[in-house]
């Protein structure tokens, strides 16, 4: 991960999301926020493969929590074993405390609940960046 991201526009993001529509939407939202350097994976396995080869090209991971093949929790666990500090934003469709607590204990940097707007996403990204800088 690049140490000095500076402004939010320079952020390089890996999106992990199984739904094509949701992924395209996320890409659009990111570009609305001003983030254009994005990578995509449609499930955890694909994402792991990508990260194996391109760890240095990603500053942040945005990952859906409920995915087939490799769940968000499992993917996060494997990522954390390699890089304990890469910012990881979890996206969840359930807005209950249980899944949030589960995510927090598994070491996500932040979480966002569906449905979310571009503004909410931007806030989350900025908060994460601020946290990482601190």
């Amino acid at each position, binding site marked *: 991960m690049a140490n000095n991201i500076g*402004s939010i526009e320079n952020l390089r993001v890996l999106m992990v999301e199984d*739904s094509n*529509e*949701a992924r395209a*939407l996320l890409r*659009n*939202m990111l570009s*609305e926020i001003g983030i254009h350097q994005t990578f995509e994976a449609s499930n955890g396995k694909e994402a792991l493969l990508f990260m194996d080869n391109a760890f240095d090209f990603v500053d942040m991971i945005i990952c859906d929590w*409920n995915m087939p093949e490799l769940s968000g929790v499992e993917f996060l666990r494997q990522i954390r074993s390699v890089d304990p500090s890469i910012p990881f934003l979890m996206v969840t*469709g*359930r*807005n*209950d*405390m*249980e899944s*949030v607590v589960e995510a927090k204990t598994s070491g996500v940097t932040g979480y966002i*609940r*569906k*449905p*979310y*707007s*571009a*503004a*909410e996403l*931007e*806030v989350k990204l*900025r*908060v994460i*960046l*601020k*946290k990482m800088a*601190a």
Partner: protein
Amino acid sequence: MRKINKLQRRRLLKRLIPVSLVLALLMELFSLLFFARGYDEDATLSVALHFPVFLILGAAVYILHRLYFQSYLSTETLMDQTIRVFQFGYLYFDRNGKLIEVSEKGGELLASVLAEQRGQAWNTLNEFCSYLEPYMLDVAEEGGKPRELEIESLPARLNGRILHVDDQYLQVVIEYLDEEVVLFVVDATEAQRQKNSLYQTQKLEALGQLAGGVAHDFNNILSIIDGYNRMIEKRLDADDEALTYTQRIRQSTKRGASLTKQLLAFGHHKTSKIDTIELAAFLDEQGRLLEALLDASVRLIINKQKHVYVDCDRDALGQAIMNVVINARDAIPEDGNVIINMETVPSHRLPHFIPKNDRDARDFVCLSVIDNGSGMDAETKSRIFDPFFTTKKVGKGTGLGLSMVYGVMRDMGGYVDVQSTMGVGTIIKFFLPCSLQAEQGKSISLGTSGDEESIKFNNYTVLLAEDEPDLLEVTAGMLEEMGMSVLRAQNGNDALLVQEEHDGTIDFLVTDVVMPELNGVKLAELMREIRPETKIIMVSGYPTDQTSSRVDIPADQILLGKPVMAEDLARIFTRLLGVDTDRLDGASRGGITQWQAMQR
């Protein structure tokens, strides 16, 4: 002396002759041993003379013994004690299935139930027989067994069975004795109620899980629809006709989202936003919203007490009250009243469905919503918390309103009770645990000097974003002086982080316009999205001439020029909170006019 019953009389008579004979023989022996020497040849005669006397004496002794010693001295036998303690009644049958005896309690249990059911006086014994008759006949017909075996097959049919009569549950337990069959009737109403309530809870839990799952997928779909819709909106010109369509899509997705919110609130999905609220002030606030929902023919009356605090998710409680009031409104056919009543309830007066631990541990406040509408029948009443259960017309109700209420109450540690009478009305009672940190409620009060500068905004929270450290401290000090709790942020991004980590509500955002990383305008834009309840005040070094500032400030934004004065801030706060300063202290109207001039 206690009256003996049939069974006891039977036993007494059965044993009377053998026991009397034995006693008489004993007395005879006794007299022979001690007095025989006095009688010589007449011994046989004397025996013949004495024996009937002894026999009568023996019988008398036995009867007296039974009646006085056994029955009188211990009027309460072990059996009676057991019956009293465990609240059951018994019925004796003989082997032929004929009823011999019914205990007082057994009769009572059945009497109360059946009398209520039939609305007439009746004979306990006969009634119970006729009540049991169908079961006994069933046995006879099914098995085609001889009559005397009926009672033997009775246990298989009735043993352990719970008979539901009206509102009461009776459990039947059957025991075999030597010559009789005894049938115990236990009042299992309480146990059964608990079981039913457990079942209800489990059912609702399961439905909650299901609802959570559905909500998850539904949220995914909604977010996609909403996202693309917003994108279309952005690409359309401001005067494009299609904008009205996208707005409708937006409204519909919003409705969809509020539906999932209700679903999740009903499921076991706790919300994370917990505030301590003063209930009276909260009800005032809600009252205004609720009145808008009611027709002119329905009056809303709110009785409240001050200084009662509860911990809850403000929006959720508001929604819960609203759902109940809407139901009340819909139940009122023409004109009527909806009364919201608030009272603190001492622990000994709390209803018993609240577990004792809870009753002892917390004070509760009872919030009742009372209407004089059409009321509900028992069937409806038992299902009102089920998700998707509705009595409203298709499209009028989702059937989620009261399920959500149930979920909110459970999450708050509160309880909800429903009382309803057809044609009279309905009372829905919320029992809310009082907050342990009562003193934290927000209030606005006037300081000693009586001017605007001295108004105190106790426990209001303000987020202050200012990149100049000294100015940040000065302004924060000023706000703290006004009684507010201040969250400090050194720039826009920092402000976002601070608000993210703050659990409670943020009443105001006071932000500098020009800041590095994220400026005030962008910060305000984001804050409006994520915390729509926060009122925003911008502070700028270029207050009057917008062109000289480097950012575009929206026309309706409240903008305050530097240097910031405490009285200006106080005036804006009171105005934004909708507080009539005249009622506080009769402060000059001029101040407000000045402020309006600043609001561009």
